[in-house]
């Protein structure tokens, strides 16, 4: 394995009694990159990341992390990685600083707990019990614990799920800072904006497989157009009529609206409006946005990420 790969896994399979969670998944993460596993709930993201973290054994497939395997060097690998689980809960009766001291103590080399407090902006909560922290503060504590051992590689499983916008921004800053200092990150998320903002490359995962891989820009460029129009009219226009609107590359009819992928808004929006008018229909709603990873997922699977 070339030294430039922080994670390399091939043909990963993990079955549970009732479901195949991971179904032949390949992944390679370069050193120094921020890599995102993107997919709906139940896609197999958590199982995958936990296999890479050495917390679950795959049924088959190979995993190399930082050049070694979990079987050969479990203890040495644990010293070199940091992680936050989905919904880690620390002991409610421990204080923030006590929790950090414990995590620091199990690593040979690491960051001083007081410095960690500064890093994740929890200084004023130093002596508060963990049970008294808000969701965002708990998540920052989880990240601080992940950083306590000065890891080379950071695993974050849905780090911003359930956070308020301000807390998300702070976490994004920390992740970016970690990467700037030479760290490698693998994170899972079902927020498209998060992946677009943070990740150098993303893998879209569905049903335990990677169905698309690339930089966010590359993935978006695989769409037939760069813009998306959501339109609702009364009565509705048929799919056929919509396809004939100039510049429309793809049409998806949903219950509440039709979603059109178009090359240029300037070309398609006026044409769409006149098509509605000439059909004797009334415009109810019209929204447009630049194509996002969300649209890529819809394009690939016909489903939305959040409710897939």
């Amino acid at each position, binding site marked *: 394995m070339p030294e430039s790969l922080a994670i390399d896994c091939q043909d990963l399979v993990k079955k549970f009694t009732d479901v195949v969670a991971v179904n032949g998944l390949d992944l390679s993460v370069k050193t120094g990159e921020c890599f995102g596993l993107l997919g709906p709930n139940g896609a197999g993201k958590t199982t995958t990341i936990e296999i890479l973290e050495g917390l679950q054994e795959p049924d088959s497939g190979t995993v190399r992390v930082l050049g070694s395997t979990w079987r050969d060097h479990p203890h040495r690998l644990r*010293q070199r990685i940091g992680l936050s689980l989905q919904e880690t809960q620390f002991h409610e009766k421990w204080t923030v600083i006590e929790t950090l*001291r414990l995590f620091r103590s*199990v690593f040979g080399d690491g960051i001083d707990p*007081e410095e960690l407090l500064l890093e994740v902006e929890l200084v004023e909560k130093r002596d508060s019990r963990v049970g008294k922290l808000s969701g965002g503060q708990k998540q920052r504590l989880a990240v601080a614990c992940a950083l306590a051992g000065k890891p080379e590689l950071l695993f974050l499983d849905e780090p911003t799920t359930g956070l308020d916008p301000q807390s998300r921004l702070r976490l994004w800053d920390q992740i970016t800072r970690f990467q700037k200092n030479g760290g490698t990150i693998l994170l899972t998320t079902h927020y498209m904006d998060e992946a677009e903002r943070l990740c150098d490359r993303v893998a879209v995962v569905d049903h335990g497989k990677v169905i698309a891989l690339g930089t966010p820009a590359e993935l978006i460029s695989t769409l037939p157009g760069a813009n998306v129009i959501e339109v609702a009219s009364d009565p509705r226009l048929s799919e056929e009529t919509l396809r004939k609107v100039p510049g429309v590359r793809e049409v998806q009819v949903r219950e509440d609206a039709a979603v059109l992928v178009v090359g240029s808004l300037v070309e398609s929006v006026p044409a769409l409006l006149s098509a509605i008018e000439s059909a004797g229909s009334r415009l109810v709603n019209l929204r447009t946005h630049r194509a996002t990873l969300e649209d890529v997922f819809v394009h690939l699977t016909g489903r939305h990420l959040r409710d897939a």
Partner: protein
Amino acid sequence: MRESPRSPLLELTLLRAKEFLREPEAVFWTFAFPVLLALALGFAFREKPPDKLPIAVEAGSGAAETAASLARSEFLSSVVLEREEALAALRRGKVAMIVRVESSQPVFIFDPTRPDARAARLEAGDALERAAGREDRLKPSIETVREPGARYIDFLMPGLLGLNLMGTGMWGIGFSIVTARSKKLLKRLVATPMRKSHYLFAQILARLLFLTGEVVVLVGFGWLVFGVAVRGSLLVLAVTCLMGAMSFAGIGLLVASRANTIEAVSGWMNLVMLPMWVFSGVFFSSERFPEALQPAIGALPLTAVNQALRAVINEGASLGAVSGQLAILAVWGAVSFAIALWIFRWK
């Protein structure tokens, strides 16, 4: 500001200890509850001067004099009642016997199958004879004997100590581990380079910290309030408590080794502890159970702790004298610890 990190074992032990002290309920159950229980039971079964035997005298001529004569005995009390009332009082056990005066002679009415009635009859006979002018030829002098170590409270205190060792050992370890497991804290910890043995060992070390407090509080309380003295050496007492605590810590670890929820572990704990509450001689001697059960009862860890504690506290037994019980405890502790390590679920 910068501090060099302490050893993980120390951090884990301190955290476990703090976690316990920040749980007021746990502190209550460990320290206050056994003391309150001892206090309540100690007063319920406290030493009293011997009860006076109550005797009813049927109303009629000479009743008042007879009643007064009876009451002069230090072992008797008397009351004058109408015939019907007196019979009712006898039936209900409120009086031990009835004395009726018929033509200046007493008639004793009592149930000879009742020991207190027989004693009342003898005392009443004596009292009335003396009142009638009898001179006793023998004048026995009386020595009152009260053997410390033979009272109920002397029996009870070691039992409560044993019960406490079991309860705090098992709940203390079991709850802490299952809480950590159900909140994924264990999973998070094993995702670090922490040594698993450090985690388990810290639980036991923290347990030892509180053990000292528990034993001192309960033994000190028994001594100060009820005069229950430790007749054996304090060192042997300490070794016995230590062995008991380790044994129950091992069993607690085993019970908690796979449970995922507090409800599940509570059920298992009760299942394990309830038989010992009943059979192991905490509140009454386990020798009351049939002979055939004795080998099984004797093999229970709480029985072993209680027997050893009673031997040391009440009888001043040496280490050698309780070695059999200590061996039983060592086996329970070692076997359950080994199985627990083997089947322990970290995730």
